[in-house]
């Protein structure tokens, strides 16, 4: 009690600044803490090889999460991403094998990404059906179509050049990582610096208000879902190139949950209007680092889901407090 008269004004200022810092960057702070913890726990953690490994593992789901962030900020959700990834993967492989052209395969993947997103978006906006329901249906349908095309099994690619996409590097950095980082920057700009981004936030926060401000709500929503599954198309190319084949029953299984988890950990609000691409970026890194450190420490892979589950819930709990 040497100096009880701490200026209350300053105290209020400092604490309000701190709570602002926490509410804006809690996910970054959590990530740094996790990074320190992992570095102390294991010598092999902070090496270039391991870091590049983590990034490569999260790149596919990371790219999907970026699109999921946009959809969730708009107040929707897309449960179909995992199945659509497998479906597009199957189509990509078929086009690749039939034409022998890598470009044709990529074009097919991106086209189907846009097309499925268009279907999702039209049913949700024009048909006024809840996003959860529409994408749940599409999730079931896309998985089933994929299985049908491949007769329940896997399709391998016959063109070696296609495998180079995921298995070559630029300045020693694997291409999937470069694509992921590049898309993160692009999506960040899109959401913060363009009309489309501003409109997505407005719709997620107050759809009627957005409509009465002249925002083309239906069109923006359709574009958000198209963007999301377009990115699933990109992710699908990377995934099938990396593995050289697509298993229509297993590929992309439960990816939607990991993507949603990354978005939520990143601080995006479940029912829209609030969220950040950067948050999702760190959200997916947190999941990646967690998996990695548990593997390094030899924790049973069966138990890793528990840790993930706890982290998701704790993340939301911490964000609620502010």
């Amino acid at each position, binding site marked *: 009690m040497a100096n009880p008269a701490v200026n209350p*004004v300053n105290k*209020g*200022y400092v604490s*309000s600044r701190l709570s602002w810092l926490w509410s804006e960057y809690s996910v970054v702070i959590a990530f740094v803490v996790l990074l320190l913890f992992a570095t102390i726990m294991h010598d092999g953690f902070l090496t270039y090889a391991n870091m590049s490994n983590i990034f490569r593992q999260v790149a596919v789901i990371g790219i999907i999460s970026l699109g999921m962030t946009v959809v969730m900020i708009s107040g929707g959700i897309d449960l179909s991403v995992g199945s659509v990834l497998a479906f597009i993967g199957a189509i990509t492989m078929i086009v690749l094998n039939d034409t022998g052209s890598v470009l044709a395969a990529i074009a097919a993947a991106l086209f189907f990404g846009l097309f499925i997103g268009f279907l999702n978006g039209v049913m949700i906006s024009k048909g006024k059906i809840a996003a959860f329901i529409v994408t749940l249906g599409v999730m079931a349908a896309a998985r089933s179509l994929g299985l049908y095309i491949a007769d329940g099994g896997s399709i391998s690619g016959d063109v070696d050049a296609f495998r180079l996409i995921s298995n070559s590097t630029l300045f020693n950095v694997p291409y999937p990582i470069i694509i992921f980082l590049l898309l993160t920057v692009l999506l960040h*700009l899109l959401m913060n*610096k*363009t*009309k489309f981004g*501003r*409109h997505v*936030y*407005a719709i*997620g*926060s*107050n759809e*009627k*208000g*957005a*409509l*009465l*401000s*002249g*925002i*083309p709500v239906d069109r923006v929503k359709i574009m958000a879902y198209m963007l999301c599954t377009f990115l699933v198309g990109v992710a699908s190319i990377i995934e099938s190139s990396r593995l050289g084949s697509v298993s229509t029953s297993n590929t992309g299984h439960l990816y939607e949950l990991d993507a949603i988890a990354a978005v939520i950990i990143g601080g995006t609000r479940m029912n829209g*209007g*609030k969220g950040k691409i950067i948050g999702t970026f760190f959200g997916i890194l947190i999941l990646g680092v967690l998996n990695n450190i548990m593997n390094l420490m030899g924790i049973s892979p069966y138990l890793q889901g528990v840790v993930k589950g706890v982290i998701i819930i704790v993340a939301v709990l911490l964000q609620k407090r502010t």
Partner: protein
Amino acid sequence: MSDYLLEMEGIYKAFSKVEVLKGVDLKVNKGEIHALLGENGAGKSTLMNILGGVLRADAGTTALQGEKQAFLKPGDSKEAGISFIHQELNVISDLTIYENLYLGKEATTKGLLNTRKMIKETQNILDKMDVALDPKTYVRDLDTSYKQIVEIAKALLEDSKIIIMDEPTTSLTDNEISNLMKLMKSLKASGVSIIYISHKLKEVLHVCDRYSVLRNGEFVGSGSIRDTDEEQITKLMVGKELAKEEHYTKRPIGSSKLRVENFSDGTYFRNISFDARAGEVLGFTGLSGDGRSELFETIFGFRKQPSRARIMVNGKPVKIKNPGDAIRAKIGLVPKNRKENAIIKDMSVMHNMSVAGLDHFLTFGFIQSRKEKSKFQAYREKLNIKVSDPNYPITNLSGGNQQKVVLAKWLEVNTDIIILDNPTQGIDVGAKSEIYHLIQELAEQGKAIIVLSTEVPELQKICDRLLVMYQGEIAAELGREEITEETILLHATGSKREEYAYG
């Protein structure tokens, strides 16, 4: 032992460095309706939140029937007999009336709900209030005024001695308001005190017994309603003479900007045709249910347009399928119910200003925040928007300032025709007068302004011409000199019908 039921003395409260209440007194008698008055931001809500236990005062005392109270949480003040009916009603639509009344304190026998007892008690209270409602009705099926009644019933069930009502009449129709007033008087007769917060001075003069006025967090006066009038109270609230201000300026009226022909949607309105001319302020009024808001929401493309209808802007027919089309046709709409329809609550003040006119801030497809900032600065000065940092969420602002930001949004879009639906809803005298000035200024620039309102003094102040609606039809056209409370009422109630000749 003091004579007052409630005595608050020297209440002081500051948020970080901003002093909101600087030693305020409030004294309420038993069985009176006490008006708590002041402009937005005068500290009324803070004072009531302290009384309701939501906030804690930094200094000062609160006494009930002479006994000092320390309200630490909302439950404490409720227990002491104080109920707070907020502007946004706290009823749950998907429960019945009696379930709402007993929410959180359900009557049980042996762990099971005692439905019969709850229904009976609810019925008793409703009977006492003299309202014919079945306790088993779902609240979602009730009109707003009845939802208010459910809230009051809830307060009575808790045996409240003091009921705080914050702007209870903003979303009520005239008929519903008079019912509420009746109910308030009968509550008063049974010994309940009501603290009544409202911007509508007419109502205050009509129903209240005494008043207290706050200005900038200070107590500036109180007294008996019988000894005062609207002018004196306004003077107390604003701190300067403002009542006689002239808002109307004579200006040249040009040719038709907006022509609407044959609007009938089969539900809300029929045979609507009118012209709004350049430089004109055209009023629309009527009782609730007259269809005027629906009409203009349809013209603006928020609702589906009727097939045979025609809209002409500057003499050319336009097709409007959605609000975006309307804006491209140079029509803007400032909707009623700001909170639901106009503000984007997760966005900052500045982004709310720019959201409808983002095209003006783009360079190569990217939003230039510097342009946004300088534009906002211009509007802040022009409209006297009080905000310390434009990056704050819009919800930090008072109602009047929020409305100014919404107006700035439409000024930025810069349409030739501006429709304002209830533009001064829930905002204080000072901000109102600023908005009237702005409307005149826009008309002087040659825009066509359409104002939808039920406040007669407002219409008298600003309109060149007034169309009165009755059950979805235009019942009369009044020139500026003909606008009086009596003539409006005559036509709006359908007591007098004359052919409204258009063309």
